[in-house]
């Protein structure tokens, strides 16, 4: 019994400690980010990594998501004669929800894991300590570029995912179900408002920042050699994905109500 309580207490302390360290790291990152000059080269490299190189995966995911979404809504809506609004449904769900969240999850899996592995390896091979001895702030040199890259590139990738998803929906409703392409586009643009798109991008921006901070945190505080790096990588992906899905609810509640 005592043990049980003890375990609970330890978990709680560990959790709060982790949360606290993440917030501290975030604060440190923001403080460093506000002090120019930035590590531009590094930032661009990270943008390439997070944004451009994630693009193919995101495009494939988005197009199939849009297609399957159109497929399912079409069959459903056909039952009460509302096939014409499939475009609306696909566009709204892509821009408001699926675009940001799916992109976030994919980037978390791809770039987040890479970040955690990279920083973890640097930590266990004492490269981060070496940076410190060279009077280079590791947060400034390693984390700020990733943080910025995540915040900027995730919305950029998301907007591409949005349009690709809508095109995917078009392929299915017009190509497969032979409905009018004019109706599809008309319904899409008639009911989509700019705030749908912008709020989706604000979400993506949050997701990008949290992926970067969580993955960097996991990598930065890695310990225990090669095994530790593996654990850090897994932890980074799991925690980022959870954060995305949980914060998505609260962000939606805040943005879309």
């Amino acid at each position, binding site marked *: 019994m005592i043990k049980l309580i003890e375990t609970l207490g330890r978990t709680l302390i560990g959790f709060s400690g982790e949360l606290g360290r993440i917030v501290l790291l975030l604060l440190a990152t923001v403080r460093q980010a506000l002090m120019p000059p930035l590590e531009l*080269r590094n930032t*661009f*490299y990270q*943008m*390439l990594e997070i*944004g*451009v190189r994630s*693009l193919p995966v995101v495009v494939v995911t988005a197009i199939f998501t849009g297609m399957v979404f159109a497929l399912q809504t079409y069959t459903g809506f056909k039952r009460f*004669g*509302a096939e014409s*609004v499939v475009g609306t449904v696909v566009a709204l769900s892509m*821009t408001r929800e699926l675009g940001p969240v799916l992109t976030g999850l994919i980037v978390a899996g791809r770039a987040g894991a890479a970040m955690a592995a990279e920083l973890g390896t640097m930590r266990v091979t004492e490269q981060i300590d070496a940076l410190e001895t060279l009077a280079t702030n590791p947060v400034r040199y390693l984390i700020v570029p990733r943080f910025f890259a995540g915040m900027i590139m995730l*919305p*950029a*990738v998301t*907007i*591409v995912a*949005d*349009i690709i998803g809508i095109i995917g929906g078009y392929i299915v409703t017009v190509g497969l179900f032979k409905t009018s392409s004019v109706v599809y586009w008309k319904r*899409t*643009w008639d009911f*989509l*408002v*700019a*705030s*749908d*798109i*912008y709020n989706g*991008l604000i979400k993506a921006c949050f997701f990008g920042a949290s992926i970067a901070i969580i993955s960097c945190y996991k990598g930065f505080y890695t310990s225990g050699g090669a095994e530790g790096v593996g654990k850090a990588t897994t932890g980074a992906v799991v925690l980022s994905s959870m954060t995305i899905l949980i914060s998505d609810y609260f962000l939606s509640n805040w943005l879309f109500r």
Partner: protein
Amino acid sequence: MTGISTEIKVGIFAIFAIAVLGFMTFRAGGLEWAKTRGYAVNILFNNTAGLDEKTKVKVAGIDAGVIEGIDLVKGRARVRLRLDKDIVLYKNATASIKSSGLLGDKFLSINIGTQDQPQLKDGDTIENVREVIDIDDLALHFLRFAQNFSDLTASLNDILGSEESKESVKQSIRNLKDITDSLRLGIDVNDLKLRKTLDNISSLTGSLSRLVDGSSHAVANISDFSGTLKTSGTDLVLDLNKAVREFREIVEENRPAVKSAVASLDSITGTINRGEGSIGKLVRDDKLYDSVSKAAEGLNRTLSTIDRFRTFITFQADYLTKPKGTKGQFYLTLQPSAENYYVFGVVADPAGKTGPGGELSNRVEFTAHLARRFGNAALRLGVTENTFGAGGDYFMDKDRWKISADVWDFSKNEEQAKRPHVKVGMNYFVFKDIFLSAGMDNILNKKGRGGYLGVGVRFEDEDFKYLLGSMSLAK
């Protein structure tokens, strides 16, 4: 991809993303300011009926602009439209609110008017507005109409009721008969023409009656008319009588003139019927019919009067100390208005009654009361347990307490009864629907005197009410 620097790749991607974002927001209507502005026109509505900012404005079903803003101006809604530049409206343009689509989305439809009128400029107001028809308003009109109509018939009844006026009416009918006789003699020659005239008149009056039905203006006139009739009815009939007599004299004197008058009447009604002239247009216009049929829909709403009608059902069981036994009671209270109500009840009485042959009659008895309420007190009159009876109630604490006194059986039919049956007691509502009852029964009769104690349920019944409502409509 070797040879292209990181920066270029990121840059290309950024340009692409911004282009997509720009395209999407433009299509989604987020960049209104980037489009050509067009011009603004105002419309005043009594009821915008669900119009909203950004609602589409359509001309002939094609998008022509959006609603830019809606605000209140002296209790009316001012709708500001932003129309595309190439849409031209004229002074007599009309605006109406329409709905489209599965979910009844509203849009504003504009008829651009005719080209002989001056064009509308930026900031002008469209003056012709077809308002959304408010069913409640219509129902109100009809209620007023029905009220006036019943007033009219009532006053007619008053007028025709008296002996004097009956005689006058008889007299005038006799006179009328004389006139028609004379007319017949004179007009036989023109039989064909007359028939045509009559046809015309019949279709004219048909149209007129439709006109009268639909127009609230006419309703007001009828009301005035009935008021006048009420005050000067008898005199009017006398005057009419006199007028008819004079008319007859004139007709007899001027037979040839009547003939020609009939001929010209024929030509006038013909003109009207063909839709010529302003009256003709009025009569032949289908719009009248449309508005009448819309009004008829509103009539359905008069059903809402049923809502004021309340029905209560009461079950009560009292234990009587003398004769020992339980008295079961069921009452149905119909309350058409707050002051008047009717109580119908069935009572299973342990105290039987002596029949004509001295035997105990059945113990099921009926109660029917007509009741009127004055503030906290109510008087009831009618049949109490199969005999004539009367009673009074006094209510306290928002009807939670009720003190009642009842007298019945004045003919002393009840077993061993020497005096009428008097019962005094009170009910107290413990909960909303459940009450306790207690009191003294048969106080004036020494042998029957006893106390009672009971419990009951009283609830308002909705279904029954609607059943009654539909029954009264069905007849």
